[in-house]
């Protein structure tokens, strides 16, 4: 866990000043001195003699014998200065290796004379290895936090500690938010559109006597659309309350001979049993027409967005259950121009800029208009809705005396155009993949 390395280093210790330097410094400060004056600066005659002899031999000093007593003065300062510099460096801790060869000879002489001591230091270096470092980190981690638990926060244990770092680039768990169904969202949008245009919403059952689904709408009892191949009849069930009086009697007469509407009627014998059969509504006009007959209002706008049922084999453009968004406007003075005007505004709000109307046929409206919208994807005019003005054979038997504009658009076709899908079944499949991953506002 550690690496040990040893090393030897030597250092110099200066324990005094060489006597010849003391002699030269005395002369430098006084200029010149007699022998006896110099001798008094030393602790002994022997020390003086040695110093005087070394300085005179090195040529540092000169003796003037012309004076009496003779005087001594400095002759050459350089030698003394070099020695002083060596002693000075050594006393400040310079290593021997820092000196020149000449200087090292001087030092060796000084060591010999006992003025400088040579000290040798042995050093040992200990350093940590990688394994050692991680062992240390582990011990430190015991002091780091995995998470801020309520206990940690309450106790203050977090103080001076850090959260242990995690891999922030790792994948997070997959999560799918809860979501409303796209059809529900679209229906919500349609409902808001209607209400913003002054309409009141209707709600009602799916099962109705054939009377309200067909007869009241002047659809003759042998009309191909009423056959079982197209309509779901409930097995073994029929309405027991319907009786040929009031509205029912009026409707029956309208079928048979036109009643008092001025129509020639369909010219057949109307059967109440046929009208009592229970059907799953084939259109939501059943709701609007029932509301109309109950309220007989002279000024009303009502709508219903809900399921209708057709006995179809399922394929990409046919479902046995799908949604329609039927509406009617009742009011004095309403006409075909208002119908077209309303439909244009309605579809504009739902994002269809370009619509037009073509004549078509329904047994219960006159005139009958087909609403078509231009599909950029299909590069063609696509059928969006049937519409028209209710016939007198429909309104008069119900006691309604003002014009009624009516239409019954499909919901899914508009949704397909928005989502850019071409199979209606996809909307009602239970594919979690699609429902979870679809982009929320795609198409809107």
């Amino acid at each position, binding site marked *: 866990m550690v690496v040990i390395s040893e090393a030897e280093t030597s250092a110099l210790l200066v324990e005094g000043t060489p006597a010849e330097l003391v002699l030269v410094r005395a002369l430098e400060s006084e200029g010149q001195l007699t022998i006896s004056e110099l001798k008094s600066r030393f602790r002994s005659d022997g020390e003086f003699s040695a110093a005087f002899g070394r300085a005179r031999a090195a040529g540092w000093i000169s003796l003037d014998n012309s004076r009496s007593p003779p005087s001594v003065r400095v002759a050459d300062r350089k030698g003394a200065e070099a020695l002083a510099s060596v002693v000075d460096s050594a006393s400040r801790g310079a290593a021997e290796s820092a000196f020149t060869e000449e200087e090292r000879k001087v030092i060796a002489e000084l060591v010999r004379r006992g003025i400088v001591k040579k000290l040798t230091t042995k050093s040992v270096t200990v350093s940590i290895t990688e394994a050692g470092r991680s062992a240390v980190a582990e011990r430190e981690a015991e002091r780091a936090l995995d998470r801020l638990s309520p206990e940690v926060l309450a106790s203050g244990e977090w103080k001076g500690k850090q959260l242990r770092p995690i891999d922030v680039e790792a994948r997070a768990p997959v999560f799918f938010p809860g979501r409303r169904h796209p059809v529900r969202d679209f229906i919500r949008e349609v409902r808001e559109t209607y209400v913003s245009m002054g309409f*009141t919403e209707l709600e009602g059952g799916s099962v109705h006597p054939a009377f309200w689904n067909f007869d009241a709408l002047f659809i003759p009892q042998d009309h191909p659309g009423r056959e079982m*191949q197209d309509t779901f009849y409930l*097995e073994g069930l029929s309405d027991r309350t319907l009786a040929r009086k009031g509205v029912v009697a009026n409707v029956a007469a309208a079928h048979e001979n036109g009643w008092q509407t001025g129509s020639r009627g369909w010219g057949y014998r109307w059967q109440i049993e046929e009208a009592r059969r*229970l059907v799953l509504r084939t259109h939501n006009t059943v709701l609007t027409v029932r509301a109309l007959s109950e309220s007989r209002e002279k000024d009303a706008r009502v709508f219903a967005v809900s399921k209708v049922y057709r006995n179809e*084999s399922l394929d990409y453009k046919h479902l046995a259950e799908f949604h329609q968004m039927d509406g009617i406007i009742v009011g004095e003075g*309403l006409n075909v121009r208002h119908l077209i005007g309303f439909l244009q505004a309605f579809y504009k709000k739902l994002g269809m800029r370009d619509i037009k109307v073509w004549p078509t046929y329904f047994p219960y409206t006159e005139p009958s208009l087909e609403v078509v919208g231009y599909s950029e994807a299909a590069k063609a005019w696509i059928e969006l809705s049937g519409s028209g003005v209710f016939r007198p054979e429909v309104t008069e038997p119900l006691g309604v005396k003002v014009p009624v504009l009516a239409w019954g658009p499909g919901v899914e076709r508009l949704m397909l155009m928005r989502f850019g899908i071409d199979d209606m079944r996809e909307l009602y499949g239970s594919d979690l993949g699609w429902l979870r991953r679809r982009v929320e506002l795609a198409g809107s």
Partner: protein
Amino acid sequence: MPVVRIGLRRFQRMVGASRSEILDKLPFIGLDIESSDGEAVRVEYSPNRPDLGTDIGIARSLKGLLGRETGMPVYVVKPSGISVSVDGRLSSVRPCIGAAAVTGLRLDAEDVRQIMSLQEDLHNGLGRKRRVFAIGLHDLERVAPPLSYMVVGPDCSFVPLGSRAPATVGSILTDTPEGRSYGAIIPGRGKYPIIKDSRGSVLSFPPVINGDATRVTEKTRAVLVEVTGTGQGAVDDALAVATTTLAEAGGRIMSVRVERRGSVRETPDLSPVQLPLDTDLIRRVLGLQLTGQEMVEALERSRLSVRRTTVFAARYRVDLMHRVDLAEEVALGYGIWRIGPLYPPSNQPGSFHPFEQFLDAASTVMAGAGMLEMMTFELVDEGSMYARFGRSGAAKVAVHQPRSLEHSVLRDSLIPSLMTALSENVRSDYPQRIFEIGRVYSRVADGVSESWHLGCLVAHSQTSFSEAKMFLEAVCRTLAGAEISAHEAEHWAFAHGRCASVGISGRMVGHVGELSAEAVDAFGLRVPVAGFEVDLRELRKQLK
């Protein structure tokens, strides 16, 4: 909707108009363009306008809209001298008949194809699959008048159309596709309608099949048209449509005398349909301030004529029932594209239905709880509804003759639909938490009762009763401020000991529980499932 194929080169010649003019205007006489290529367009027409059932008839109408030929077409009918005697016994078999001859024809293959297609459409539409009427066309030169419309027994024998050997009426009924399809229309046993000529050749065994002896070929220059049926009005309508179309193709219509005991009638009766011209009504309905003259011109473009206050339409206009029908004729002749839109202002505030709002809110609350919304069908298959849960289908609400057995019973619970959804997603990521808001049906004493349910299933390895109950309690509180009470219960979907009935204010509103192992296994699931189902109308009542 029946379809007519319009070959464009032929049609341009017939109408005398350019291709673009034709394509542009076809929708405005009420024809839906179903498809088109460079050579032909296929258009759908409404069965109440059989006069548009051939390119010949469409040309007649379009020439009016384009102003090439306007007003009511007039067809001259001269007597042919041919008669048909009607057997009194037919009154209980197939009482009505009308017939006509059309001579001077030079039909090409396309004419013949168009007329055959019209005949088929008439049979299926106004003819209600030949029940109301059936049409027969014969080569007049091979017919030896006079004719008799009579009753025969099952042993009567003739060579049916498309066959070489003679066959009896009885064997035709049992051995040929036509016999099996249409034989049941003839009421009673042992009495069958037959049209024969003076030599005893069988022209027709209506409404089943014609005889081969009088078959129409490309060389046919004159035809005999006969229509038999159960209603004289419909028979006359069909005869008028067929003969006027042949006349439009270049033929001359000649009448046939129908002789019954004590009455004689010349057919076809092509007297025009008459309706009063109610200009006020038309202005009111269309919102157009047209002058009388403008209205007359528009009607003439719709191939109608006006004399004083009466509108005359050729007999083939079988759709005109009420004077209001003339509003559409005026609109068509005027040009629907010219009618300017007018937004109908309203001073009504508009309002949502409170229960629909509640359903919408339920969806929002469930999504907020992390649930994914499903929308599945109300009509389901019996197996997933009953058998897979080991319960009886005795109280099922079934529909008559569904086209698909996958959609044959109305569901009484959302749990089977949601289990089916889970079973279709076993490869999707878990946890799976799904819900549906849907209509359910149950049989009650006097019929069917409908209600709206909220169903929810949670599927993952750790799910439990208490998870389901937690969501249920949260939803009831959030949506309706309601606290539920749970009581130990048994339910066909849930495991014994892991199921509770759910009460609110003393009323039972649904169930919560862990799905039984049998059910989980029956749907091929490999994780536990828990969930609940509650009645939203009951929950809504808590809001008051």
